[in-house]
């Protein structure tokens, strides 16, 4: 046990529309697994349109690492393989047939399995994609030997789902999942809890892991922040990360001997009439969740949180890694300057880390923020603002610039191996010059992936 890690930098964006602690269900009949959720993946299909699949049937695999397989979350029929530009597969859509037929592989207890057995079980049954690697922030390579595995026990992003609430009653599954992933590394499994919060028993009772506590604002819950402060990644090292909720999915699946696609999704955002935790499945369409629940016409649906999520349609699908759906107003109306939305106005409704708008008078108010860019894209002018929300011993602006001009040596020196795009989400939020920082970091990581890994 080590002392509490205290973060002084960071930012909590207080938004309206936190999920109420009510469990609801939404029956979907349409599901999709979206290859773009897995960055850099080239999928190779094993099924065609019209094929019957069961829960756990392999639908595609990674063209370059064939052992990584992706499975169907539902029993039914492949209804469409939706392609985009250059025939890239964007969605593999599956129509449920109402049966819950599963591929069975036999229940097993992770306690009695060895590393090889766990790895095989995860790879064969579509669980491997839950494991991601740092650097690069893509699906882990099965051939690597990670120095440690990190699990964050909470999510600190705006309107984030409460892991304690979701994991309540998943005691055994969570423990089984932790035990299983612990067999994949010679190092430790680090589980990081939030300071001054009484976590659910499922988390506090976890065994076989190294626990840490961290205090501070977002991004305290980001696993990247935790890695940096617990056991930072140096060049040549690899760590793996798994979302705590996905650890439970791994545990459930191994204990049951069949793929368990259930997932609780937090329906959040200022435009949702009645927020709740919705019990559904991986890849479900959000249509039944949001039908009749949306307070206004012009809204944006986000799979994930407002800082890192993907924009989806009203009948889109929840992303593979997302445990949250956020609905916020679109901001595509031009605003006259002297009115509330403009740059000369008082700006009482705007949120800013600076105090140039009068919204600083009400710092704790829960706000409704829309998707307006609030300005135009410019060259970097203001300095020191990114550092305020970036709790790393890394110079964010310099690293972003090195990604922009593709200087690999400089990127390595400045710490590109330690970061993922999501670590820069707050930087992107506060940037006065409205640069798409997460994109720039991703491009930098792609270059590193191609040249150095």
């Amino acid at each position, binding site marked *: 046990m080590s002392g509490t890690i205290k973060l002084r930098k960071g930012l909590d964006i207080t938004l309206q529309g936190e999920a109420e602690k009510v469990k609801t269900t939404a029956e979907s009949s349409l599901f999709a697994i979206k290859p773009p959720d897995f960055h850099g993946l080239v999928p190779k299909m094993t099924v065609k349109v019209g094929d019957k699949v069961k829960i756990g049937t392999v639908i595609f695999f990674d063209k370059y690492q064939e052992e990584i397989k992706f499975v169907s979350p539902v029993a039914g029929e492949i209804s469409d393989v939706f392609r985009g530009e250059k025939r890239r597969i964007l969605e593999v859509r599956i129509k449920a047939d109402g049966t819950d037929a599963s591929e069975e592989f036999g229940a097993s207890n992770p306690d009695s399995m060895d590393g090889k057995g766990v790895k095989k079980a995860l790879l064969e049954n579509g669980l491997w994609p839950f494991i991601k690697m740092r650097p690069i922030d893509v699906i882990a390579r099965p051939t690597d030997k990670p120095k440690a595995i990190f699990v964050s026990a909470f999510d600190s992003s705006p309107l984030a789902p409460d892991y304690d609430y979701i994991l309540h009653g998943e005691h055994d599954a969570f423990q089984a999942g932790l035990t299983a992933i612990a067999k994949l590394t010679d190092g430790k499994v680090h589980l990081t809890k939030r300071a001054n919060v009484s976590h659910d028993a499922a988390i506090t009772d976890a065994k076989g892991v190294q626990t840490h506590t961290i205090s501070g604002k977002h991004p305290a819950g980001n696993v990247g922040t935790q890695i940096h402060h617990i056991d930072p990644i140096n060049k040549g090292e690899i760590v793996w990360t798994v979302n705590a909720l996905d650890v439970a999915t791994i545990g459930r699946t191994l204990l049951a001997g069949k793929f368990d696609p259930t997932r609780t999704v937090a329906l959040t955002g200022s435009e949702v009439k009645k927020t709740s935790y919705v019990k559904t499945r991986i890849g479900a369409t959000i249509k039944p969740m949001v039908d009749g629940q949306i307070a206004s016409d012009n809204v944006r649906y986000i799979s994930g949180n407002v800082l890192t999520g993907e924009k989806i349609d009203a009948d889109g699908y929840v992303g593979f890694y997302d445990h949250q759906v956020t609905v916020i107003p679109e901001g595509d109306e031009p605003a006259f300057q002297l009115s509330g939305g403009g740059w000369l106005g008082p700006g009482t409704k705007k949120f800013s880390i600076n105090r140039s708008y009068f919204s600083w008078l009400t710092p704790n108010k829960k706000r409704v923020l829309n998707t307006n860019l609030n300005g135009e894209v410019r060259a970097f002018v203001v300095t020191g603002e990114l550092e305020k929300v970036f709790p790393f011993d890394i110079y964010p*602006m310099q690293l972003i610039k090195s990604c922009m001009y593709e200087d690999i040596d400089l990127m390595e020196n400045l710490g590109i191996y330690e970061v993922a795009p999501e670590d820069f989400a707050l930087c992107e939020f506060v940037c006065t010059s409205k640069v798409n920082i997460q994109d720039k970091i991703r491009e930098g990581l792609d270059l590193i992936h191609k040249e150095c890994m």
Partner: protein
Amino acid sequence: MKSLEKFMRKLEPTHESKWAKFHPVWDALYTFAFTPGETTKKGSHIRDGIDLKRTMFMVIVALIPCLIFGIINTGHWHYYALGETGKFDFTHMMGAKALYGAIKVLPIVIVSYGVGLGVEFIFCIKNQHAIQEGFLVSGMLIPLIVPADIPLWMVAVATVFAVVLGKEVFGGTGMNIVNIALTARAFLFFGYPTMMSGDKIWMSGVSEMEVLPEGISGATQLGQLATFNGPAEDWAYQGGLSAFESAWPLWESFVGIIPGSIGETSVIAILIGAGLLLYTGIGSWKIMVSFVLGGLAVGYLTQLGSVTPYMDLDPINHLVIGGFMFGAVFMITDPVTAAQTSTGKYIYGFLGGALSITIRVFNGAYPEGVMMAILFMNVMAPMIDHYVIQANVKRRLKRLKTA
């Protein structure tokens, strides 16, 4: 406001029209009036309310107290030179002073903005990029750091020089190496030294007088102090430093009732602006504080090793005379030309302040060292950042070795 929005949309030049090249100009006017309905695409779906326009606007607001005080102060020294008002009798004939000052100062502001924005527009049309907001602040800074009697054509020439060679050749706002406003001032200082230094230009109207009224000197405090470096018979005050200090009490210097460039004199007005910049979080307190500390440090050091009366000057006095505080709050803090790392900012500010006072005290040719010091530090800022970042890189490599 919907109708105005529609009207402006109608005026938007299309790609085919012969006005297509002028789209950046339309864009500048449109975005000046409206925040566009542009939305985030991916990544962070919500964004902080601030943008570059708001940032620049706050700096301009912060400069307004300096401008207002500068206008009245210009009138004050004019009527003092004419012998119609007492030396520190600031409130006497306030209306006439403000009127005279406004007639002198406002044209400079208009010329600076008109010429500067004109050059920006030409470059944006030529390069087809959006007009960026950087000059909104530079255009206000330039009038505040020149003497009131400067001919308008010089302001125009200096502004063109600063915008083209100081900024546009490097790629526009955010890319410049040295501060734009100080580039303009340096251009004037070296190009037209008789209009930027000496004893005749700091009180408006003095340069046209054949003989000054009895007992009145047109020199600034800095000019007078610089004489202390010379032989005793050339001293501005035969009584030495104490005579200087009784001629210019600290409080009057603090309020700003001293001759000098238009906007630089009043520490009170500058502190109001500084308060706004720091409270809103737009200005960097790290640079401001370390700049002042750097100045004080050299001030005390010169006192310790004093060999001339000038070196005896109270360091506090150094802060309130000349453009030291104006430089500390509005000039050296320019984020584009300053050091960009936190640690670098302390070093950068401290050296800037230290160098300012050093040049003042030891270099008789430049009575005011702030401009030179800041320009020099602008050039040095990337090097400071380089070493700060290298330290970070070394820390990371060391971690690898010990692990």
